[in-house]
């Protein structure tokens, strides 16, 4: 986490939802953007489920 994000986090109150304002600085080439699902490199965030969580989820389902 960058220093900038830490300061943001400290200013935040508990139990409130936030959307940090995005600032446009760079973008992918269109083909690259199509592959990544976003034109903004800072928004690339592929979901990889933690192995532990998916196992306990299966147990919960029986």
């Amino acid at each position, binding site marked *: 986490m960058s220093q900038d994000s830490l300061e943001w986090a400290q200013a935040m109150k508990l139990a409130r939802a936030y959307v940090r304002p*995005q600032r*446009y600085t760079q*973008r992918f*080439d*269109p*083909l690259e*953007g199509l592959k990544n699902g976003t*034109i903004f490199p800072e928004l690339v965030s592929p979901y990889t489920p933690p192995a532990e969580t998916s196992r306990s989820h299966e147990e919960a389902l029986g």
Partner: protein
Amino acid sequence: MRTPINREELLLRIQALEFAALDLNLYLNTHPGDARALADFNQISAALAQTRTAYEQAFGPLMNYGHSLSCGRWAWIDEPWPWEA
């Protein structure tokens, strides 16, 4: 990027430009004063229009009901359909 030559490559290029325009459109909805994003949006939109024209001149209309020209003859009914190409 080199100039796309075949139908598939041109279609992919159109899809990519449409997606880039969409994403910048969404950003501009909440940041209408961002001059840089606006310039990029306009540049991508112009490239999209140009690429669409290039595709339609080579392979026929991408849309119907007045959104694409059909020069010389009625080409909308020609196969493959744009979504089958």
